[in-house]
């Protein structure tokens, strides 16, 4: 087990290094100069444009060669410094991410977990009930094939514009500001429903289909037939099938949770939700290298940790992995 973990850790360290390097490089391959974009937005007179260009180029550390920028980036990273935002100069990137993260987490974690549990349950049930299969399967396909944006727009249209029962823009009432008050909590819940529902429904469809197909596959597997031949009750066979079918789903869940800090870009944009997803869009639009890097870094770390947990968890929940490892030793 120790060598297993050590080997995994080494792989993760290498992956981290490469991913962070790519993370640093990608925004810099985007066409367009962030400082010029900033100067253009300022509408500075020609008399000050030159001085401003020089000032901001230096302020963002873009006045040194690329290799030096890269080294500076790592040096700052080690100190937990993700740099200063171009878009919101001179605010630190970490502040912007920390401000947006709660909204994204409050939206995505429940959406992912609930759609996972509900989707798998319903999918598993569909696999063994004809009626359910004939209804849930097409519905699942429709839901999972639905673009988030479209579903979000439909929900916003029906509940926000036509019936006007739910708000469609923002994370809480415009007349409030965040705080630990009952008013805010209630308002937050009301504004949370539609974006949550759009994420939940699409996720639900995906999990349900995955589980339904997996169960059918498992029920056709040799061990299931063997159990059947031994005269085991259907219930028992289905329980085993469910356990096996759940494994790949758990990987999917971990990955979805790992990437949670990426936010739900499209949903957040449609509902004007002030989370990380809409921050990503703004960062791209403003060539905000540092903000983009910072968010991607969070995603990288999240995905790596999630993968690591899956690796460990598999050893615990899947006897085959355990035995395989022991065999290897």
């Amino acid at each position, binding site marked *: 087990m120790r060598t297993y973990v050590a080997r995994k850790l080494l792989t993760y360290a290498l992956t981290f290094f490469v991913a962070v390097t790519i993370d640093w490089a990608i925004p810099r391959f985007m066409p367009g100069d962030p400082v010029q974009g900033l100067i253009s937005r300022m509408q500075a007179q020609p008399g000050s444009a030159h001085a401003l260009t020089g000032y901001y180029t230096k302020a963002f550390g873009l006045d040194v060669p690329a290799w030096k920028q890269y080294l500076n980036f790592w040096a700052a990273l080690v100190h937990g410094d993700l740099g200063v935002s171009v878009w919101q100069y001179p605010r630190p990137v970490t502040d912007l991410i920390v401000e947006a993260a709660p909204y994204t987490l409050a939206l995505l974690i429940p959406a992912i977990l609930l759609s996972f549990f509900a989707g798998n349950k319903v999918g598993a049930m569909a696999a063994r009930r004809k009626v359910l299969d004939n209804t849930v399967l097409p519905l699942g396909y429709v839901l999972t094939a639905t673009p988030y944006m479209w579903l979000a727009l439909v929900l916003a249209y029906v509940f926000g514009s036509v019936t006007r029962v739910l708000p469609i823009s923002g994370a809480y*009432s415009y007349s409030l500001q965040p705080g630990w008050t009952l008013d805010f909590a209630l308002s937050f*819940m009301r504004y949370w429903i539609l974006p949550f529902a759009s994420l939940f429904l699409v996720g639900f469809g995906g999990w349900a289909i995955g589980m339904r197909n997996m169960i059918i596959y498992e029920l056709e597997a040799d061990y299931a037939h063997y159990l059947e031949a031994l005269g085991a009750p259907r219930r028992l066979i289905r329980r085993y099938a469910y356990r096996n079918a759940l494994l790949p789903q758990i990987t999917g869940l971990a990955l979805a949770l790992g990437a949670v800090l990426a936010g739900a870009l499209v949903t957040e944009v449609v509902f004007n939700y002030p989370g990380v997803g809409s921050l990503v869009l*703004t960062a791209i639009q403003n060539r905000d290298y540092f903000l983009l890097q910072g968010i991607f870094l969070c995603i990288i770390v999240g995905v790596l940790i999630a993968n690591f947990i899956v690796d460990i968890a598999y050893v615990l929940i899947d006897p085959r992995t355990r035995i395989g490892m022991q065999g290897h030793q």
Partner: protein
Amino acid sequence: MFTSRKRRVAVGLSVLAVAAVAVVASVGVGGAAARTAKPATAAAGLPRDTTLYTTGTQWGTYSDLNPFKTWDYVTGLVGLVYEPMFNYNPLKDKYTPWLATKGSWIQKNVYRATIRTGVTWSDGKPLTPADVKFTFETGKIATATFHQLWTSGLKSITTKGNDVTFTFSTTPNYQEFNGYLYNIAIVPQHVWKRYTPDQITSGNLASTKQMVGTGPYTYGSGLNSKQSFTWKKRSGWWATGVYGLNPKPQYIVDIFNGSNNASLANLLAGNIDLSNNFVPGINTKVGSKITTYYPSAPYMLSGNTAWLVPNLTRAPLSDVQFRHALAASIDVNKIVEADYGHIVSPANPTGLLPVWKKYIDNSMVQKYGFTFDVSKAKSILAAAGYKDTNGDGYVENKDGSTLNLSLIVPNGWSDWMTAIQIIADSAKAAGIKITPTYPDYNTLVDDRGHGNYDLVINNDQQIGNTPWTYYNYMFRLPLSDNQTTVNYERYNNPAAWALTQQLDKVNTVPAMQKITSQLQSIFLQDLPLIPLWYNGVWAQANTGHWKSWPTVSSSKLQTLPAMWRGYLQMGGINMISNLQPGK
């Protein structure tokens, strides 16, 4: 692994959770219905009847409390908190004394303003001429946006009694200086003296405690929010006594710009009172509930000119005849009609805004102005030697090579994206091939600055006190590798630039008209840019909670209807002061 018992628990939990969501949803629905019926107060929320909701300005988080960052400060900071010496109403070409009571050129190169007495900062200290001096002296910092003031001749600022005196070493740039009078917001020296030059020009100065202004509002809540920001009315605004201005909204909540559909839905539902967004199709919504400045087309005031900017360093755009043919080939009326639904108007051939009507020399327009005329475009092309040699319906370059101009606008600017398709279509009829292209904004800025484009649409220059800003935008020299804000077309005409500088140095309407007439003669004959249409001062208001919005039909309400940066001192503050409760 799950035992079956645990599994049942898990199932139970997920069912419970889903049920909980459903319950919350229904509670939410009930709450919403209750609130729709009686849109009154949530206990901790703001009272709807005395709160004004606005949107259309803020694209960043509400973090910037620096009035010198004129492109970034939180909506309303200048106007509601920090105020300039004068306000200016472009619709009436009228300056109103604000923190100054009067100001004039006492000599050719000496300007003297008298600062209003009895004005107090929100921390109780009095406004002094030293504050004005301090404010203008921050322009000495090289990265100050108005640094040009100090490099173009301002020598010193002195104070005596209530007076502030600006002394220039040469003939001042009057037109520019007049702009500074209402665009530079005065800051309190006793607070700001602690800041470093970098903080002054680019800091966010994010402590609301030090946001000390003379205006009618003060910080409510929402610093660093990405959703909304609240201003709270403060008592003792000087203009209440002097001009009888007493804004009724106790709170002004500005809302972050989000998706168009959400913003429009909120406006129609009465959750937003004023939207300064471009809303496609708003012309179909205008009625008793939704109002615009004009009750019918063009609905909106003209706020800036959208220009077709050719790259004059590239053939065939360097050829004046080709530019005339191009101008004649564009069916702007179709853009106005099909793209905008008549919420914009076609531009005058001079490109000058309607508020500068008195500077437009109609005899020049008659003589040299272009109109949409396909056959004329064709004949100009033929006369200039552009022929369709390969019979594909498009003319070729004079050297016989294929002529295909790319026309760029930022991706996502949907109205402009449609406009350039119309332009390409109508140019096709005249035999000019134009390919619409949609790079992202920053790429476009880069290419435009470095001259790596054929044609681009631009509307950077806004409404203001003088057409000089437009000629400065068109003709400014010298050219550099990167043209960041002006003369994107790289028009190199020293005579035109000399006239533009002269225009800056005169200060009477007749003297200005004499020069603008000459400038128009050059512009219309040489056509370095092609004016297309006037973009609007986008403003649509819901009268449900607030009425008496700016409108052409009442002299008192003829003010610019926008919360945009720089617009509060051009009439926006009057708009807020004129509002009356809707019920």
